[in-house]
């Protein structure tokens, strides 16, 4: 458990750092959100109105450290402020809608990509030179070299617009009412998830597969594998319990680290597939200099990644007895 | 034997390693209160089980570690306070070291001639044209002939024994007075070990070098060393002339160690000493004699304090209450 405690400590520091970063960035950026909004109305707002908007938006003046502590204390109360571009909706509410979808899509796709990559990697290493190794491996390698959005768009145009097999966008059919208990709705959600998730999986699988294959190959030359085989264990048992259990450990750390990457990358998916989510919200927030929203999204993504990392760490501890003692 | 003055001397040398993170520190007492002398033209062996602190001792003398306490007296002068590159460089031109693993003590990216030229350059032992000559001389000394065959080679192109000879040549390059050899033959094949030991013996005799010979192989200590010290869990427990010590061990640990060595010459399957327990963890050793837990003659005071040095003869001493007259 010391390992987990240490990691918790680390996450706390990481959180503090990103919170601080989060605090600093808008203060370094140029562009005044109220002015921008005013500009969007193309000059039809009264300066008095602008004045009072500054107040309503809660722009705190004063020395930086004071602002910082106000910011921290608000954060601790779960108050991320009010979105400027969506005034007066609280940032938490703006994010809440998108975050669920992002987590669902990215979570599912990542887990699929990871599991499939691991599985294929195991097969490829186990049977060197066979199908998984000599055909699937290079193909996934090629796929992961493609720019994600490009592949996604081709897929969208071909399968959704061209063939009409899949919807062009959205997370569920708009003719169905959102209701998580309705099977019709759920199947619609799944149907809408297929294309975006597939493209994420396609581009991500290669990395996992290669990593797992290489780890697995290293592990397979260990004595304990030979010993397990000499013991007369079945191939399955050797492959999964002895080899894969050990080979997966490095991938697991990678998995945790990649989550931040994938969560951020969801932005492109969301844009291409009109899928709801925080990525696009972030991009809009940056473009409109909606600082509170921007900070909120960034913080949320960071927290999600930290939590995912913690989960991966826990997994790690479960799978690797050596860190348990450490 | 006593006539000569020691060239290098350790006085109360102690090394504690701090391990673990900021949260929970552990102190590994790798070496405690070691005092011994190295004489020109003499080989002093340091034997003990793995982890007993042998390498630590050698590395302390090579100034790779800073001692926690104690003195390192070179030619009558304490050098522990010599810090900074120039002072250390002076010391290093007198004291050199050979490492256990000839595969890792030579840098795989550098040629043999690079390995030999560097010490010559650093210690200004040769310049320009002389350099090549000097390199060839060194290779001659360690019987790598013809030298020109070896200079352009890279370590991986040499066998283990050849590599170890290069390592010796490198140590000789600075024309040292003392050579610390940390298990120089344990990684080598049986058939070539004697070649290396004989080479070192020749150097001792011809160049009047003082050797510290670290080994876990008592038989080779008997063969090569004039004097032998036995180490257990960070303490030197017995010291004396090699022949005397191996034929007539006094300390219970030395007796145990000797009885464990397989020796066909002694007759087959004769020794039947029950051995219990294991070497204590160095971070847990307490105040008393570390061997107390395994010692067949253990007394209550053994657990309270480390026994003092009891001199048995001019050249022989032991740290054990069995010999303490008091």
């Amino acid at each position, binding site marked *: 458990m010391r390992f987990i405690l240490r990691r918790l400590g680390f996450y706390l520091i990481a959180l503090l750092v990103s919170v601080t970063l989060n605090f600093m960035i808008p203060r370094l950026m140029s562009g005044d959100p109220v002015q921008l909004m005013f500009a969007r109305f193309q000059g039809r707002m009264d300066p008095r109105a602008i004045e009072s908007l500054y107040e309503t938006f809660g722009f705190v003046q004063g020395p930086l450290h004071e602002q910082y502590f106000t910011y921290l204390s608000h954060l601790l109360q779960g108050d991320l402020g009010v979105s400027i571009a969506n005034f007066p909706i609280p940032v938490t509410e703006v994010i809440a809608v998108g975050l669920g979808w992002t987590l669902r899509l990215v979570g599912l796709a990542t887990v699929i990509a990871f599991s499939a990559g691991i599985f294929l990697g195991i097969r490829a290493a186990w049977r060197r030179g066979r199908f998984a190794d000599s055909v699937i491996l290079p193909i996934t390698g090629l796929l992961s070299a493609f720019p994600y959005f490009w592949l996604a768009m081709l897929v969208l145009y071909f399968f959704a617009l061209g063939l009409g097999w899949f919807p062009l966008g959205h997370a569920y059919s708009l003719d169905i009412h959102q209701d998580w208990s309705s099977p019709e709705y759920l199947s619609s959600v799944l149907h809408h998830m297929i294309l975006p998730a597939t493209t994420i999986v396609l581009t991500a699988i290669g990395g996992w597969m290669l990593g797992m294959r290489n780890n697995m190959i290293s592990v397979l030359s260990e004595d304990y594998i030979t010993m397990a085989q000499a013991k007369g264990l079945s191939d399955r048992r050797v492959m999964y319990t002895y080899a894969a259990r050990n080979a997966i450990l490095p991938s697991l750390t990678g998995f945790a680290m990649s989550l931040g990457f994938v969560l951020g990358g969801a932005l492109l998916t969301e844009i291409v597939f009109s899928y709801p989510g925080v990525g696009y919200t972030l991009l809009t927030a940056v473009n409109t200099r909606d600082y509170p929203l921007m900070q909120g999204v960034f913080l949320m993504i960071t927290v999600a990644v930290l939590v995912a990392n913690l989960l991966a760490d826990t997994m790690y501890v479960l799978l690797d007895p050596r860190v348990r003692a450490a | 034997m006593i006539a000569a003055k020691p060239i290098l001397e350790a006085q109360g040398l102690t090394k504690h390693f701090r391990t673990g993170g900021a949260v929970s520190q552990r102190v590994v007492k790798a070496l405690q209160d070691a005092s011994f002398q190295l004489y020109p033209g003499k080989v002093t062996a340091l034997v003990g089980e793995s982890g007993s602190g042998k390498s630590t001792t050698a590395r302390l003398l090579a100034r790779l570690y800073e001692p926690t306490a104690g003195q390192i007296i070179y030619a009558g002068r304490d050098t522990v306070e010599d810090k900074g590159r120039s002072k250390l460089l002076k010391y290093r031109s007198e004291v050199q070291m050979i490492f256990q693993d000839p595969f890792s003590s030579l840098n795989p990216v550098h040629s043999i001639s690079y390995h030999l030229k560097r010490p010559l350059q650093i210690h200004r032992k040769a310049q320009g044209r002389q350099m090549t000559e000097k390199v060839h001389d060194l290779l001659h000394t360690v019987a790598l002939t013809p030298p020109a065959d070896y200079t352009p080679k890279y370590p991986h192109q040499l066998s283990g024994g050849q590599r170890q000879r290069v390592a010796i040549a490198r140590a000789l390059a600075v024309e040292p007075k003392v050579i610390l050899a940390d298990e120089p033959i344990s990684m080598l094949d049986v058939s*070539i*070990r004697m070649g290396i*030991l004989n080479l070192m013996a020749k150097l001792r005799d011809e160049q009047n070098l003082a050797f510290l010979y670290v080994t876990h192989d008592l038989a080779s200590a008997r063969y090569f060393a004039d004097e032998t010290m036995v180490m257990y869990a960070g303490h030197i427990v017995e010291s004396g002339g090699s022949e005397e010590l191996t034929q007539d061990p006094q300390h219970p640990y030395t007796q145990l160690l000797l009885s464990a060595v397989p020796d066909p010459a002694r007759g087959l399957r004769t020794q039947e000493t029950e051995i219990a327990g294991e070497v204590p963890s160095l971070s847990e050793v307490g105040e008393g004699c570390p061997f107390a837990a395994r010692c067949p003659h253990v007394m209550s005071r053994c657990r309270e304090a480390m026994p003092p040095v009891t001199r048995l003869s001019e050249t022989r001493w032991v740290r054990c209450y069995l010999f303490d007259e008091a």
Partner: protein
Amino acid sequence: MTQPMPTFDQARTDAEPLLSVRDLVVEYHTQRGLVRAADHVSFDLHRNEVFGLAGESGCGKSTVAHAITRILKPPAHIAGGQVLFDEVDVLKLNDDQLRDIRWRRISIVFQSAMNALSPVLTVGTQIADALQAHENGTAQMTRRQVLDRARELLDLVGIDPDRVNSYPHQLSGGMRQRVVIAIALALNPELIVMDEPTTALDVVVQKQIMDQIRELRNQFGFSILFISHDLSLMVEFSDRVGIMYAGELVEVAPSQAIFNDPQHPYTVRLMNSFPTLSGPRVELFGIPGSPPDLITPPPGCRFHPRCDVALAGRCQTERPGLQPIGARHMAACHLLDDKIVNKEDAS
């Protein structure tokens, strides 16, 4: 450890050997070329015998051991010969037949116990796996029975049975090696191949373990193929010893004969290569040069480049075969031809 071990002489010498290796050839296909790591290796191992295989690093000891247990992996490839175990050629068995004799009749203890145990599984699981993989051998054991047996096995090798739930990293090197031995014993095999079982260990621990093995052998009466480069240990522990050089078996003899009366020049020099604790302090020389590269081994006798008594011409070109030169003593050297003749003459 009360009874002295029955020596080979007391063993059933006339009986069929338990294991008979005939002209075993093993090759590694490497990028640099073909490595013939075992070249026509032949020897017999009898029931209740400890047969030692000694030689320098890389001479092919492990290769032979792995070939016998058929756990060689690519790029290794058995290019010829037979391994008759109880008169069955192990090399010809299919996977099922192989699984049947593996561990149940032949088990193996690896060079380094650290690597022979999976770090993420408990000791108990790894013992249990061996038991459960052979249902016909160990009958239908319940999980309970399996664990009980695991505890029993640990007890046998002198480890607290409660350690079944420990992970390898929680054990010391010596304990791990004992666990590996316990696993090797799990199914009461007839032959245990021990590939340098104590090389990574300190002498004191080595002694403990060797004593333990000896005791267990007393108890269960299995045969051992014992591999080591530590000649002292080899001579002390084995009944008979085979000396390998560069993929070839150059001398086979009872261990005392190897120690006291080595015949092959390589063995002779090898025996003169390590200092001993007792006896006179004589000057030792080792063997000049280093073992050959097995991709381009020297023609003729492979030892000839390092041999100071090599005959000009013959040793360079003609490969000597293993020939009997005395009672149960065989060696492969042209120099010994005279000896053989002499002996024949004498007799």
